[in-house]
């Protein structure tokens, strides 16, 4: 962040939300709902999770509320931006059969409403760029994802309170947000440093007529980010992960993980970069029409690698190996970088607390000739 930020006093945060609403955006922001942080429609700063902290550990996510006035003193909730763009269930098209049997296919590409999300994290911004690459930058851009993506405005907030499960500093994706967000905030004790990186962002922030931040305020912001990075206890092994993983597909450690893994698919559902989905067909009872949808899928289901009458990846060993090898290995060949942005969700939301950083370390150490 090189440009000089402005300063948004906490008492004026509402004016930012009002500006977005006035400009026609639906505003989503973090809210404490069902005891977790979730992005939900809001119109008032009073709905933000003031004083809420999350405590994450392998297999555990808990929140506590203190009397702190901070509204972004948490790491993340179970879902990133993924469901807002790549919908968990989405009709792709409808088909109608005419009297002569001819089929008429009718697209279901949505009319997406302009949507602004406040409180986006650096890990999730990085994952959004990965999903952009997957859905939009190949030979067949996805028009459903495109419609929502074009209408999305992002107000990111640097992460000052990473959870113990976070390792974005190690993947190089956080805790501070880059200029791929429209607006970036750093939360300080009484307000926010504010950067506007896009024309759409400036259209919202310029009418607020904010003063430049002081050198002390900028320094405090930098210090909070450095401290946040330093508190992250987890990191990825320094090894060349694609080479190590693909060279160790027969490694005995896969059997060790398989003894613990329930193949429930939670990790893939909370992962902000996982993109697998299956198609579903819902014919009308009369038979003249039918709806074709896509639904999130997981490589931990046996149907994922179904071929004819067999399952190519039948065991949880094969399924976990597929997931980990793809995330940290396959992604690099497919999209030029690892599919992991260090959000740590797969660690917290794994019901048996499997920790990808520990599994990778074990595979790398043993691959290097160490003892298990």
């Amino acid at each position: 962040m090189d440009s000089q930020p402005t300063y948004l006093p906490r008492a004026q945060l509402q004016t930012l939300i009002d500006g977005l609403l006035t400009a026609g955006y639906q505003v989503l922001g973090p809210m404490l709902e069902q005891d977790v942080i979730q992005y939900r429609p809001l119109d008032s700063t009073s709905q933000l999770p003031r004083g809420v902290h999350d405590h994450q550990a392998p297999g555990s996510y808990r929140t506590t509320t203190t009397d702190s006035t901070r509204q972004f003193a948490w790491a993340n909730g179970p879902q990133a931006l993924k469901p807002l763009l790549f919908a968990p269930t989405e009709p792709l098209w409808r088909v109608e059969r005419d009297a002569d049997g001819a089929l008429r296919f009718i697209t279901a590409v949505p009319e997406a409403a302009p949507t602004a999300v406040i409180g986006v994290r650096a890990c999730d911004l990085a994952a959004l760029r990965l999903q952009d690459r997957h859905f939009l930058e190949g030979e067949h851009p996805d028009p459903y994802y495109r419609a929502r993506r074009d209408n999305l405005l992002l107000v990111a907030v640097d992460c000052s309170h990473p959870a113990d499960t976070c390792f974005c500093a190690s993947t190089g994706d956080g805790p501070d947000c880059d200029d791929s967000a429209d607006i970036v905030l750093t939360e300080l004790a009484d307000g926010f440093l504010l950067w506007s990186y896009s024309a759409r962002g400036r259209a919202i922030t310029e009418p607020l007529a904010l003063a430049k931040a002081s050198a002390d305020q900028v320094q405090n912001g930098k210090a909070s980010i450095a401290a946040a990075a330093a508190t992250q206890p987890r990191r990825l092994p320094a090894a060349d992960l694609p080479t190590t993983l693909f060279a160790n597909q027969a490694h005995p450690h896969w059997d060790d993980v398989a003894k613990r893994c329930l193949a429930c698919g939670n990790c893939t559902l909370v992962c902000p970069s996982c993109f697998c989905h299956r198609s579903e067909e819902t014919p009308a009872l009369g038979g003249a029409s039918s709806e074709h949808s896509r639904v999130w899928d997981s490589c931990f289901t046996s149907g994922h690698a179904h071929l004819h009458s067999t399952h190519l990846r039948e065991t949880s060993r094969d399924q976990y190996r597929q997931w980990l090898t793809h995330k940290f290995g396959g992604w690099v060949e497919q999209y030029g970088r690892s599919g992991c942005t260090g959000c740590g969700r797969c660690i917290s939301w794994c019901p048996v607390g499997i920790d990808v950083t520990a599994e990778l370390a074990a595979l790398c150490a043993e691959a290097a000739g160490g003892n298990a």
Partner: protein
Amino acid sequence: MTMANPYLPLDARIVERIQESPTLFTLRLELTDPAAKAAYAFEPGQFNMLYLHGVGEVAISIVSDPLEEHLIDHTIRQVGRVTGGLAALQAGDHLGLRGPFGRGWPVQQAQGRDLVIVTGGLGCAPVVSAIEYVLRRCGEFGRVNIVQGVKHADDFIWRERYDRWAECPDTKVLIAADVGSPLWPGHVGLVTELFDQLNFDPANATVMMCGPEGMMRAAARDLLAMGMPPQDMWLSMERNMQCAAGHCGHCQFGPKFVCKDGPVFSYDQIADLLQVKGL
């Protein structure tokens, strides 16, 4: 064919239905929209997604010659939910079609070279359009070897097609069945046991193979030993395909998306992956 929405099928009509064997049938399709029909073009080895109304889609390779006038042929084995329903359709019925998808056989760069085409079981279907393409362009290629293996002699279809191919100049057709029958004219045993009869110069040849992975592994091993460079051997891979656009993730084979990076790969691209079980 450019597609604004890669997921949206086009209406297609069945012009002819041919029963090839008790479980194999061919659907000859025509796109009903004249503009789409005129614009449709494919390469040997590519595939389409066929949609059965109210049931779903399935990936099927195209077996017709790319220069054939506007009829798109698919030979289908009746094995599952969608193919079982497709089997019941008759000429005049409609289905949905989107495609073509994927990278096909390297027929351009194979010009002037000897060809070794090794197939197993219904594995033949994805290479049929390549064989037809090559044999209709006699003289543009070197010596052509077609080696077909089946489990049981009764699984062998398209006998008249193989007979026709065998009559082409510089073309050798070799067939093998693991289990023979009284009138079986070919070898009883593995396809690889026929390799000493091949007419080809490994330094100037292209191999195309498709079929069960075990067969392709064994064939690649033996052809490598005969001096074939790995980058000149091409394999058509098969995985679960649902979107065909590289998005749904089901067809991943290691870091490859079979639907868009394949289905045809050179052996050097996937040799390591082929040795791993459960990918």
